[in-house]
C-alpha cells in the first residue's frame, strides 16, 4: 500500500482517511467527497493518484487532518498514522504537511522502525523539517526539498528553514555543495530530489542525475508544483521503480505537465494536475526510448 499523510486547510481537526481516486478532469475523490486541489497535501495526493491510475496500481490511501496552522491536527494525525501502519502493510509512506513536532515525530519513528519490513520512507514539507530538527533525517529514504529547503538541510544549526543562516546561500550554482554538506552532517535522507530550475537527484550526498528539460521557468512561482513531483515519485517507488529513476521520471513528467498547461505565474496547481496523465504518457514514451 502507498500511504500519504498530511493536512488540508480546514480548522476542523477531524481525520479524513480513505482511498484517493483520480477521476475525469483531474478531480480527486476520497470516500465519495471531492478534494479541492489546493497546494500542499492535496496536490501531493492528486499527483500520486494520477500516477497510480496511469500505471494501474491500487489508489493511494490517504490520512489527512484539517489544520490551518493552529495545531488542530495535533497528536491525532501522528497517532492515526501509527495505528494504521501497525495494522496494514504499507510499502511506501509519504509524510507531508504535518505541523512539526519533534516528540510526536520521534514516537512515530519508533513505531515505524519496529515494522517488518520498514516501508520506504519519504518526507517533504513540514515532515522533512521535523525529521531534520529531531536528528532523524537518516532514517528516511527520500527527501524532496526545494533550494531554500536544501539550504536549511545543509545548515546543521537550523531547526526550521526560517533559521537558515545567511552565509548558507540558496543559489542554484551551489546545490552540489549544499547537498554534500547536508549529507555530511546527517541531515539528509539517503536520497534527495532537489526541486528547482534544474532538478537534482542525489544519492549519499552526490548528484547522480540532473533534469532540466523541458524548462518551464514560471513553475517556480506556482504553489504545489513541488508537491506534485513528490506525489509522482512516491507512486513510482511504490510501483517498484528504483528511487533515482522514480525521481528523474517524476521530475520530467512534472515539467511536461507544466508545459502542456501553458502556464503563467498566476496559474494554479489544479490546472497543471489535469495534464498529469498526458505528461506521464509522454515521459514514459521518451523513457522507453532512452532506457
Amino acid at each position, binding site marked *: 500500500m502507498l500511504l500519504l499523510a498530511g493536512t488540508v486547510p480546514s480548522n476542523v481537526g477531524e481525520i479524513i482517511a480513505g482511498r484517493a481516486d483520480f477521476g475525469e478532469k483531474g478531480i480527486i475523490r476520497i470516500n465519495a467527497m471531492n478534494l479541492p486541489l489546493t497546494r500542499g497535501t492535496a496536490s501531493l495526493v492528486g499527483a500520486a493518484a494520477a500516477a497510480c491510475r496511469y500505471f494501474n496500481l491500487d489508489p493511494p490511501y490517504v490520512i489527512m487532518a484539517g489544520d490551518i496552522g493552529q495545531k488542530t491536527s495535533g497528536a491525532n494525525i501522528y497517532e492515526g498514522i501509527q495505528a494504521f501502519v501497525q495494522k496494514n502493510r504499507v510499502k511506501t509512506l509519504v509524510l507531508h504537511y504535518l*505541523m512539526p513536532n519533534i516528540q510526536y515525530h520521534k514516537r512515530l519513528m519508533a513505531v515505524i522502525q519496529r515494522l517488518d519490513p520498514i516501508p520506504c520512507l519519504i518526507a517533504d514539507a513540514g515532515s522533512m523539517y521535523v525529521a531534520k530538527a*529531531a536528528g532523524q533525517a537518516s532514517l528516511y529514504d527520500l527527501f524532496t526539498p526545494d533550494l531554500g*529547503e536544501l*539550504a536549511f538541510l545543509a545548515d546543521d544549526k537550523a531547526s526550521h528553514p526560517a533559521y537558515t543562516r545567511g552565509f548558507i546561500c540558496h543559489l542554484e550554482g551551489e546545490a552540489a555543495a549544499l547537498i554534500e554538506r547536508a549529507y555530511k552532517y546527517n541531515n539528509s535522507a539517503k536520497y534527495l530530489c532537489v526541486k528547482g530550475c534544474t532538478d537534482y537527484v542525489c544519492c549519499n550526498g552526490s548528484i547522480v542525475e540532473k533534469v532540466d528539460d523541458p524548462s518551464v521557468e514560471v513553475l517556480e512561482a506556482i504553489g504545489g508544483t*513541488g508537491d506534485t513531483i513528490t506525489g509522482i515519485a512516491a507512486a513510482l517507488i511504490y510501483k517498484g521503480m528504483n528511487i533515482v529513476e522514480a525521481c528523474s521520471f517524476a521530475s520530467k513528467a512534472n515539467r511536461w505537465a507544466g508545459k502542456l498547461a501553458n502556464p503563467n505565474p498566476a496559474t494554479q496547481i489544479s490546472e497543471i494536475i489535469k495534464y498529469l496523465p498526458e505528461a506521464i504518457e509522454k515521459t514514459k514514451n521518451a523513457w522507453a526510448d532512452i532506457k
Partner: protein
Amino acid sequence: MLKDILKKKVDSKGEEARGLFVFQEAGQAIRAEKTLKKAGFKVRLMAPPPHIRTGCDLVVAFDLIEQTVMTRELEESGNPPLNIVPVSDETTSPLELCRVKDFGGYLMVRAANMKITVEKGNLKIVNISGGGCPDVPYLADRMIGKTLNECEGPAQIGFSLCAYTLNVAYEEIRHLLGGAEA
C-alpha cells in the same frame, strides 16, 4: 533568579541581560513582537533554545529589565506569554534575506522557503509557493486573488514559522511594488 542572571550578565559581559517570551504557537510570537514594537520596546523574534524547541516555533527576545512592563503590555493585548525564560547563547534569528525574480508582468519574492508572486499592473497576489507548515495552503486561500492593499498579511492571519517567513517576502514585495503601509 532572574535578578541574579541579570546581574551576572551585566557584570561579566557589560551587556544587558535578555529573556525570552515563549508562546504556544509562532503566530502569537509574531503578534507579540508587533504589539511590543508598537509600544516602543526593543524586541526581536528568535529561535528558541533546543531544550524548549518543538520544531516550528518562535520566541520574542527582550531586555530583562523591562520584563514586568512588557508582560503587562502583552496581557492587556490579550496575548500573554506561555512562559518566560532567560536567554541562552543557543538562539538564532530568523532569516530576513529576500531574492527577487522578475517574470515581466509579475514579480516573485522569495524569503528562505517561501515565495509570493504579484501581478505588477494591479498588485494582485497570484501565487504563494513553498513552505511546509499546515497554514501555508490556508494563507494561500486567504491571500490569492486579493491585492497587496486589501489583504491581511501573513503575520496577522498565520500561525507558523512559514507564515513568518512568508511575511518577510510579503513586506518586501509591498516595499518593491508600493503597496500601502501595513
